[in-house]
């Protein structure tokens, strides 16, 4: 490693700035990104640094987003919570478990305590891995992604955000500013299948969100398709919202089958397509049963 440099005075503020940028607000950050195409934004670093350490990424310049205050905050917007893209999972778990139980449950399954202290929602979205844990609850809840660039801000529904494996609508000149997640309007569930109980990338995952007043179901699938997926057919299932009766076995079975059908899994190192479909049906049934049980407790 080159620790000895010929010219000890070869440290100029300008050069330092060119290599590592530390914006303090989003406008500065997007201007910086526009002025330095190819500069790699970094927040928690839990994805980016793996690429850097393994030399898959060799950024000439980086933009540190941890100093951007707006990205580090969440706020109550009435019907929704606006979560700055740089809020780490640990804070989502600590602060938002009551209003966003589905997202908080998914956040609890991310990596390890060390990773949850650093990893962010914005990073999960920007990486857009089909296996990212935050995606299914964002899809199930109907979240929106707020994207910033020098042209201003635009908002994209989570369902339209992902375009392929590790690909999204995010352009090189754009940064994710925030995620706007509607507050839970009923029970929410998140189930994840992995090879261990902790520190595990999902084999498949499923998030369910019930809106009691709106009589609506949200269903998000993770790690079982080229992108995170919404199970739209499953979402249109008829449920006994009018309290006319219990949730029938047939309904539960059908919900599981519809979720499994919505998946587009492949065989890979973590599991086969057939296993993923099977496991998703199980997860979907359990999620619905658990959520309905919670609802019945509320009603009685």
């Amino acid at each position: 490693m080159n620790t000895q440099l010929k010219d000890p005075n070869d440290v100029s503020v300008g050069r330092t700035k060119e290599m590592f940028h530390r914006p303090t607000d989003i406008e500065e950050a997007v201007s910086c990104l526009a002025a330095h195409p190819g500069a790699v934004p970094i927040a928690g670093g839990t994805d980016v640094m793996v690429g850097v350490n393994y030399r898959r990424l060799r950024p000439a310049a980086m933009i540190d987003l941890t100093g951007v205050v707006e990205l580090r905050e969440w706020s109550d917007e009435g019907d929704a919570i606006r979560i700055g893209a740089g809020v780490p999972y640990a804070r989502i778990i600590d602060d938002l478990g009551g209003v966003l139980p589905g997202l908080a449950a998914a956040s609890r399954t991310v990596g390890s305590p060390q990773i949850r202290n650093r990893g962010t929602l914005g990073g999960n979205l920007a990486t857009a891995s089909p296996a990212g844990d935050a995606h299914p609850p964002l899809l199930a809840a109907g979240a929106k992604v707020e994207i910033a660039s020098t042209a201003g801000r635009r908002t994209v529904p989570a369902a339209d955000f992902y375009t392929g494996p590790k690909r999204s609508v995010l352009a090189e000149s754009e940064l994710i500013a925030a995620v706007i997640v509607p507050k839970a309007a009923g029970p929410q569930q998140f189930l994840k299948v992995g090879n261990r109980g902790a520190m595990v990338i999902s084999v498949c995952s499923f998030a369910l969100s019930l809106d009691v007043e709106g009589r609506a179901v949200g269903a998000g699938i993770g790690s079982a398709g080229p992108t995170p997926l919404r199970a739209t057919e499953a979402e249109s299932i008829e449920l006994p919202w009018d309290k006319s009766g219990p949730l029938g076995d047939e309904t539960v079975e059908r919900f599981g089958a519809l979720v499994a059908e919505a998946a587009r899994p492949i065989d890979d190192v973590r599991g086969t397509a057939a296993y993923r479909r099977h496991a998703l049906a199980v997860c979907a049934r359990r999620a619905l049963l658990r959520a309905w049980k919670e609802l019945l407790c509320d009603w009685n």
Partner: protein
Amino acid sequence: MRLELTLLVDGEAVTAVLDRPGESLLRTLRERLGRTGAKNACEQGECGSCTVLLDGEAVVSCLVATAQCEGREVRTVAGAVPGEVREAFAACGAVQCGFCTPGLLVSVADLLGRNPDPADAEIREALAGNLCRCTGYEKIIEAVHRAATARTAENTHTGAPGTRPLPPSPSPEKDPTLPHGCDSVMTEGRT
């Protein structure tokens, strides 16, 4: 191209000079600053052997860019761990090959700072990011309980509240055979 920054490592202000923006805090600590407490194993955040406290939060230093740490406080195993935790690990045989030990000690220090008397499930959860391939974890969990008891007893004795600020560990003796500015001590091994 160089990037110079100052950070606080185990209570001491140090300056690091980097020649690329993505250098990890782990690499800077070990290879530029001679602080070998954090161990390098997976470099992808899976194993926890490089765990340090960054402004009091447990993080894996392999996934932190050093350049993000300007003016921030880093505590490695040499500066983060109360004596009771180290003693409990030794007393319980919670160390075998020792490679994961520094990371575990930092995670345990972090846990006990937040929760002075954790239950088994809480310990397992808190240490989920620290892999040990030797011990099977049972003795590690035993050591955490022992450390918790020792700390609580001491705090009761001194009349301090349930938790106290980290780190109260005695300052380690410097090894004269190591290069100037290097604070490595035997607790960190020589790996």
